[in-house]
């Protein structure tokens, strides 16, 4: 079920566009903000709310890599794997994250704390390598910073 607050937010987005379905991506973002991801149930709720079929909405949702259709951890780590970070050796960071968290890309730690995903260029190439955790950007990463960074997220 969509919460009253979510409905309120979605209504606002709908008011800005010609047809409710035009606001569907915004609506998915709103739902994802609360739950961290878009469950099948939420997808159905949103679809109904904006007047789309489940299939139609899922077609949009699955197109975008930052709409999560599977559960994620409490924090999502997006590690830039694009060219500048590649040149600047992001792979060491990746290996360390794999080891420290005991997960691979696309996986969530057993305690549900982190999900690790590769991400294309974060637009901070002069400070490569870089990663984002939730809304925080970390640049000029070195392997020895990782423990401290990760410790900020519980």
């Amino acid at each position, binding site marked *: 079920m969509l919460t009253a607050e979510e409905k309120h937010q979605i209504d606002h987005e709908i008011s800005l566009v010609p047809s409710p379905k035009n606001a569907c991506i915004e609506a998915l973002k709103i739902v994802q903000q609360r739950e961290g991801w878009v469950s099948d149930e939420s997808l159905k709720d949103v679809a109904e709310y904006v007047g789309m079929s489940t299939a139609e909405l899922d077609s949009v949702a699955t197109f975008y890599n930052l709409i999560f259709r599977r559960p994620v951890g409490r924090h999502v780590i997006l590690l830039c794997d*694009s*060219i500048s970070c590649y040149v600047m050796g992001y792979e060491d960071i990746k290996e360390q994250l794999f080891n420290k968290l005991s997960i691979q890309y696309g996986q969530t730690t057993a305690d549900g704390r982190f999900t690790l995903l*590769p991400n*294309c*260029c974060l*637009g901070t190439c002069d*400070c490569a390598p870089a990663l984002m955790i939730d809304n925080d950007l970390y640049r000029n990463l070195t392997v020895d910073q990782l423990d401290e960074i990760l410790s900020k997220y519980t």
Partner: protein
Amino acid sequence: MEKPLTQHIVPGRKPLNLKEYEQVGGYASVRKVLKEMAPQEVQTLVKDSNLRGRGGAGFNTGLKWSFVPMGPEAAQPKYLVANADEMEPGTFKDRLLLEGNPHQLIEGMIVAAYAIEASISYVFLRWAYKVAAREITQAIQEAYAAGYLGKNILGSGFNLEMHLHTGVGRYMCGEETALLNALEGKRANPRAKPPFPQVSGLFGKPTIVNNVETLCNLPHIINNGAEWFKKLGLTEDAGTKLYGVSGRVKKPGCWELPMGTTIREILEEHAGGMQDGYLFRGLLPGGASTDFLVEEHLDLPMDYPSIQAAGSRMGTGTMIILDDQTCPVGFTLNLQHFFAQESCGFCTPCREGLPWVEKILLAIDKGEGKPEHLLTLDFHTKYLGPGNTFCALAPGAMEPLQSALKYFREDFERHIHEHHCPWSKSKVWQPSI
């Protein structure tokens, strides 16, 4: 040296708020166009200034606007969209403008919207730019409060609404028609042109999509004139340009310099030259989808015609440096993995061709390459060209590949003949997922 775009940007400091921005002359161009100029005059001025789109294509901005149907007969509402979906690997110039001076963007957007008589505008911002999102949201609120946005702006009768839309990923959204689909809440597949967005754009209405840097130039052109703008450039291309460098240089970064500054100057004076222990082998001049340039090109001016003449494109003007300790095959593989992942899947050559290219490069990098693989790569570079694919994504992907095969072919062949990567310390780069 004039730096109109970045003069008020101080790294590490909060951007100017509306009041501060007005104190340094902000929004003067809005007052000027609303009071003194007809929309067509704005179009003509910008066309005359030879401002070329800073998103990569380099099309004359005023000319692009001129295809928008004007007058009372034109379909309504018309839309203006700021393309702030900066996602070209190696590119980080718009971030500087978005985080550093959001009012400058809003001012430019008002000018552009006025020029095409648009009444609704969007900033399409990529998801990762959290700081920019915060600053723009605040700046839009301030601009509404001060009467620069909304109904009857400054008593002129001109109306403009402005919304911020943050994306949910996908490089494709940077392509203007795919961006429009994303804004409509659809899959970000590109649209066929014609019809161009000027005729049938957002929600089927006339629309202009301009890059952030392009829009930020507008207030200065309005305030100082076309001639002033043209003179900023060192070559036939006008204005200043945000140039960036990333990779193994001493001082990677982004600087506003006169259009036409040479690559060498950017690389050596501003980026401080190569890091100790690394030698220059080549560079992508304007993001991941531009052809390699090498040593012989370093004295070229960074402007649209010069870089094009050298067989590449200026693109976004942010360079990525390939050094001697990075494997060119791995470098190319990383790029192709990116493009294969970011293909929307709409047209055959891009959807099927890019993953094939990626697999071949991976095989070569692993030492499992075969001589015929190079032939397969060659036909991809031949046939994934502009016009053969639905949009410019795959042709863009082929640019670094074809030039890597041209300039570093021996390195590819060595991988194949020696059955391993000469640069490999222990293992090759593995594309993620």
